[in-house]
């Protein structure tokens, strides 16, 4: 009698375990399969148009975009991210250092984190609208690389801030205590321990934020993007960008081939970016641990 119930229970447990394993496998396969399918789909549709000329030439043809290439859009996207990063990375890392190392008011911290998290999840079109109203109109920057770059910086700052702050908080307490207890200054600790220790996670969050920003058309459509350019990169001029170019090509039904080609380039840049971080992290862990 006792043995039987025990057996039944063991069987039930086994069944549950099996079901769970099957579920995990299905989820895992879907998780790999879906992105793989998307990438394959884009590659199949985009690859035929890829050529050196496509990667380097400005768009041409009538309507514009049916010929030529996307050279200026690649340059423009890289320029926008560079500007965005050079504003947002230092600002958000300094803000994270302040809030994790110097700020003593718990309430202030809760308040800041709450707003940063809200801002990090605000849809990008709202940043576009805000950038347009503030930078393009109020500060009269016109639709330009600078206005677009700063708008992208607005969008990346809360994301980088929250990620960095989180990794600082995780690394923090005992290491900080050990360092400060040796009589060194807070700055010395930040330079010698905190930043090196958290560098891999900071890099990751920076790249994720950049890739996300690089892929979104909404914030730059109103602030920095133009449909055609010969590839001149100047702060006071608008630039082409990869996502806004796709938006234009598809939105105006110009050329699906070119749109897929552009999408493939964009995805390629994102994959390379992520691989770059993986490599940096790997090298870092190998050297330092």
């Amino acid at each position, binding site marked *: 009698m006792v043995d039987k119930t025990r057996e039944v229970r063991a069987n039930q447990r086994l069944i549950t375990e099996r079901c769970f394993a099957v579920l995990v496998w299905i989820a895992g396969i879907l998780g790999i399969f879906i992105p793989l399918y998307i990438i394959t789909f884009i590659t199949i549709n985009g690859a035929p148009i890829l050529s050196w000329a496509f990667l380097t030439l400005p768009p041409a043809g009538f309507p514009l975009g049916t010929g030529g290439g996307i050279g200026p859009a690649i340059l423009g996207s890289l320029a926008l991210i560079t500007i965005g990063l050079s504003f947002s990375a230092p600002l958000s890392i300094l803000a994270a250092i302040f809030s994790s190392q110097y700020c*003593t008011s*718990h309430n202030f911290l809760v308040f800041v984190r709450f707003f940063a998290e809200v801002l990090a999840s605000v849809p990008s079109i709202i940043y576009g609208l805000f950038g347009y109203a503030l930078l393009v109109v109020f500060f009269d920057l016109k639709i330009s690389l600078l206005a677009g770059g700063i708008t992208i910086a607005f969008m990346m700052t809360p994301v980088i801030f929250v990620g960095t702050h989180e990794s600082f908080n995780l690394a923090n*307490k*005992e*290491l*900080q*205590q*050990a*360092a*400060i*207890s*040796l*009589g*060194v*200054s807070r700055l*010395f600790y930040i330079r*010698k*321990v905190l930043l*090196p*220790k958290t560098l891999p996670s900071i890099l990751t969050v920076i790249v994720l934020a950049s890739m996300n920003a690089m892929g979104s058309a909404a914030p730059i459509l109103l602030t920095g993007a133009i449909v055609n350019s010969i590839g001149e990169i100047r702060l006071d001029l608008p630039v082409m960008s990869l996502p806004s170019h796709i938006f234009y090509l598809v939105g105006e039904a110009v050329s699906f081939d070119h749109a897929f080609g552009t999408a493939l380039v964009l995805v390629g840049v994102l994959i390379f970016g992520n691989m770059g971080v993986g490599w940096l992290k790997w090298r870092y862990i190998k050297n*330092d*641990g």
Partner: protein
Amino acid sequence: MDKKISSSDKVFSASHVAPSPALSLNKLNAGYKERQVLFNINAVFYKNKITSILGPSGCGKSTLISVCNRTLELIPGAGVISGNVFLNGNDIYDTAASAQLIRKKIGIIFQHPITFPASIVENVLFGAVYHQKLTRQERLDYARHHLGIVGLETELINRLHEPAHKLSGGQRQRLCLARTLANQPEIILMDEPCSALDPSAMRHIEELIKTLSKTYTIIIVTHNIAQARRISDYTIVMTNGRIIEQDQTTKIFEKPKRKQTHEFIEGLIG
């Protein structure tokens, strides 16, 4: 606070000619955000002597030594509520006192050895390069000298530039000691420095502590009652955040004045 505690007000028996005090605590109350942990602590630590702090787990030993070099206040909400800590006659909690300088002069080795994400040598030099001018040439020798003191140099001779996190628990403990010694403190606070060591390594550290006491004032928290008896000149016994007795070690162990002390060292409480 608690008026009943009076034995700790009268520090050490009169028959003993006391050496000069290095650090003294006066009516100290301290604790964490939610609760007070130390109550009316009066204690004296003498120059170039070893003082052990004994007491049951959770009685406040770690808290007590961390108020001695202003590291308790690094925990948000924690700190001294009232009272003083005097280092060579100056209150270390005086607003004019530099916490950084105090932490350099009074080194602490925490209960859990924390190494920095850097090489073994860089770990040893961490505080030293901040406080002293060392040329690139001098640095390695300086680090090796201090690793030698704690018996790690020969053990690690080929691994000096490896990351410190690859060390064993006991090696890390000794590395932390080397790191504190390299800082050239006057007083060394140790929180259970032998908890991860085998008996032979423990003997080595005990010998080392005795040697170090010629140059430094040493305060050591330990759970090992026999160890306290072996190495320390003075012993403080605590329970529930209060000092119940402090005296020369021989007196504490041979004729304790309080029944609680006797019970504790016989292993009956705690």
